[in-house]
């Protein structure tokens, strides 16, 4: 099972942005992970929503930069990808629990199938996109904390 995983970096991605997720994409231009934080309850939420899912109010939302470090919560190795990803299988999709406590689904790069485990530490890998934004992926975090 030490099979290589493909990195999916070559996939042409046309990502539709919604009004309430624009600050997220703006942050990625500087390789910053900013996610929504509810001031009223002190909780983070991902993915971007139009309102705080804890209070239902828009004004409780602020965007906070977070480290992007975390641990793998669950993962899968896709052997039959969605259409744009055909031919790149196998590639991994991971759900990572960020150090602020919310889960983020993304791809993982620089990682073999044998290394990939629930509980493994990961850090961000920023993949540049044509429009100047970056797509957050993860990579193993073997460095000092």
């Amino acid at each position: 099972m030490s099979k290589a995983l493909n990195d999916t970096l070559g996939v042409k991605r046309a990502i539709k942005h919604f009004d309430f997720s624009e600050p997220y994409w703006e942050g990625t231009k500087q390789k910053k992970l900013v996610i929504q934080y509810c001031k009223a309850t002190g909780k983070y939420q991902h993915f971007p929503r139009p309102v705080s899912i804890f209070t239902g109010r828009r004004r409780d939302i602020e965007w906070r930069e977070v480290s992007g470090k975390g641990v793998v919560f669950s993962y899968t190795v896709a052997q039959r990808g969605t259409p744009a990803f055909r031919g790149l299988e196998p590639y991994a999709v991971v759900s990572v629990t960020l150090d602020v406590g919310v889960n983020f689904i993304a791809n993982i790069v620089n990682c073999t199938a044998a290394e990939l485990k629930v509980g493994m530490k990961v850090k961000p890998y920023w993949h540049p996109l044509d429009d100047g934004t970056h797509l957050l992926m993860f990579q193993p975090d073997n460095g000092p904390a």
Partner: protein
Amino acid sequence: MQRKSYEGAVACLPVTIPYRRYSTNSAQWWLGRALHELIKRAGLRLKDIDGFAVSSFTVGPDTAVGLTQHFGLSPRWLDHIPFGGASGIVALRRAARAVQAGDADIVACVAGDTNHVDSFRKTLSTFSRFAQDAVYPYGSGGANASFALITKHYMNSYGAKREDFAKICIAQRDNAMSIPHAMMKKKLTLDEYMSARPIADPIHLFDCVMPCAGAEAFLVCREDVAKSLNLPSIRILSTIERHNAFPNDPMQIRGGWELDIGELWSMAALTPKDVDFVQTYDDYPVISMMQFEDLGFCAKGAGPDFVRSHTLTNDGTFPHNTSGGQLSVGQAGAAGGFLGLVEAMRQLTSQPLGSQVPNANACLVSGFGMINYDRGLSSCAAVLARAA
């Protein structure tokens, strides 16, 4: 406040338009055929249908209103229920209330989808606004990847093994052997299940439904109306419905049923031991296992043991998905949310398409739908019984 019973409202006339793997016909064509079949078999005229509830993913840009014009209906009660796997029970409970209140006399509940060569992909990409932003860029837009993450998490948490999921799939295949329109009617062995090609580990080929084209339908009306039409009917003892339950669970490991299960059984005045068969929503076997837990048949986390200690075929100790479920019959889009309900109506009126569950007097049917990110958002269930 005590919920009002469904006394007086019944469901009758289960209709299935036999599935096809692919179809060049439109969803409107499939839905229209189902509606026509209802009218023909009930001996009704079109104008007798004064209520209409429709569920479909591929009928757009039409809504229920547009469909009334397509079909020549002039209903005074109309509902569009695009809730995927929750559509059937939601249609049933809404229609039953409309009939009880006198807002409609005869409601046709219809679900169907077509399956062009590329329509499954189109459906996926329009499931949710968020999906495009948050998951699609990672090649994870489909239900397979979401359910792979959920399945792995469930296996890690509760010790389920692939062999346990195999048992669910194999029993359903046995149940499907006598269903004429089942997409998959070849007996499934444990070896075949275990050695099937991986789709998104730990999901393998036989954990996945086969998308296809088809339609399912039934009528809801007053008991006296069903009698006057000579239609065997079933009683609705209780229902529940819930959306976006447990938003703070880090990943789905339970469905909304858990919130409402006490009410479901108390309203029905039955316990899980009292039902003779169970139809769960089975887009993947892990979600059926979760339903065994969340609907009260075993404790949370005991799903794997429950499966190991029961036989799940129609002649077994726990008859489950008695027509083979979506895993064997196929998933005709939103009709998948009707499949278990329509089959339950056949069992409870002793008109099975396949094999009859012995002494089928009461059952539980559950629905589940709308996978987004790392969870399915909609859950519902109904306890049903043979007419007195």
